[in-house]
């Protein structure tokens, strides 16, 4: 289909970029975290450094299996596919170092976990972030 006007093309581009910005990282409102940087989120999810400024230990939550949201999250965060993320964790787990993230079966379970644990963080679509959690980082895709 040919685009009829440059304006329509531009607005489609804009919509596409808005849709792509919908992936967010949420935290428990009692965590004391207002904002995190991409580096912070990477350090927390890759188990490099989970000490939060508030003194709490961050507890990242991952989605189970090959969930599409999980694939998008790791691609946006570190440019890796799930096989690479698994290989990364195989190295750390089997050398007895850091623990991988807590695994939730679905987004609702992830949100429930974050709401119940002050140090917990999860990634969800912006539309799924409800009053139980606070958005602390937005991922550009």
């Amino acid at each position, binding site marked *: 289909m040919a685009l009829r006007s440059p304006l329509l093309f531009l607005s489609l581009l804009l919509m596409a970029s808005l849709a792509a910005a919908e992936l967010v990282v949420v935290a428990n409102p009692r965590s004391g975290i207002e904002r995190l940087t991409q580096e912070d989120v990477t*350090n927390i999810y890759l188990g490099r450094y989970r000490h939060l400024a508030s003194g709490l230990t961050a507890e990242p939550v991952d989605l189970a299996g090959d969930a599409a949201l999980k694939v998008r999250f790791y691609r946006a965060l570190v440019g890796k596919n799930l096989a690479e993320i698994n290989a990364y964790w195989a190295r750390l787990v089997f050398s007895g170092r850091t623990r991988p993230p807590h695994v939730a079966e679905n987004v609702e379970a992830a949100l429930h976990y974050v709401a119940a644990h002050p140090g917990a963080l999860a990634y969800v679509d912006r539309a799924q972030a409800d009053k139980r959690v606070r958005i602390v980082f937005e991922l550009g895709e």
Partner: protein
Amino acid sequence: MSGEFIMHSQRWMTMLPLLAALCGGNAWAAGHDEGAAFSVRGFGTLGVARSSSDQAEFARDFSQPGGIKGGQWSGRIDSLLGVQANWRATPELELVGQLVSRYRYDESRVPQVEWAFAKWEPDARAALRAGRIGADFMMLADSRLVGYSSLTVRPSTDFFGPLFFSHFDGADVSLTWPLGGGLLRGKLFAGTTSEKTAMAGGIWDTSGVPVHGLVFDYLDGPWQWRASTASVKFSHDIEIARLLAIELRDFGATAAADALTIAGTTTRYHSLGVVYDAGPLQVQAMLNAIRHEAGYLNHSRAGYLLAGYRLGTVTPYAGVSWWKSSRKSLSTGLPDIPFAVLNQTFDFALSTSVADQTTYTLGARWDVRSNIALKLQWDAVRGSAASVLPFIRVQPGWNGRTDVISAVVDFIF
């Protein structure tokens, strides 16, 4: 095609469906809820390799008593299976045990306890581990057996070959703190070795001796830097050298006899490494220097450079590594008449710790699923005829060159 290869192929065929069943989940992490107090998982490699040279056996590292040669396909050097149990007793305390069956110093595959430790993390910045823990002598050294975690079929033989310790009994403490936009992690470890190794056609008891070391890592975005040092003080001699030393001492060649004595001497391992890992690109560069107080063992330096770029589910990679020893000039001081045989034996003993080679590596890793990877690799070892230390049962006519082709499947469950 050799009979052994056919046997291995058949074994593969029967193992693959089993593997697929074993690795049932679509993603590894799916079945492992870290909130759960107890988890069991594992890793393994099934693989065959062939080395073209008839004159020397290619092995993965010093711990292996035999290797592969003569173009015969064999599953000997790379195939292994590991199982690990983690029990999180409290949020701060975790117990970890790992059993691994692999080709070991005594030619058996009797499973051995690789790790068995308690880990205490009072907060996210500090960790203390005590028990049997991984010998983190060089970057990536404590995950060498987990083929799935790495790009290549096996860790570089030139770089990791001399490192026959995989664990020790003791403790380590690590601290992490933010520094200059990145993270600095320091680790101190100390303990006692608990492994024996294959050496000079026999078994060298390298257990029960003190080991300690210091590691610094700096992590900054896609970059990870590492500097480490470790030392081991041996308490047992290599049998052949010990017997020769007794004879030399009888004839008054005390200095030569002392050079052959390893008991009471220290070996130090220094290394520097950097890994750049961003999106599909992965580059590793490392250097090491191994210094032996024992005169009989030559100092050595090694390094490698490896790069891979992922295209979809396939990651082609290429690397170059080298291992070079510096020869110590030692002699018995005894006249050739009537000691020619003794002098030759002494010179021969010294020549057995010479490494002088470069290895070119080309390969590809195919991530079939998110817990199974297939790898195909070609290593071209190009060394001098004197480079015998990396090989086993070197025969006359060895020219320092061999081509190793490997095909493996790595999995985690």
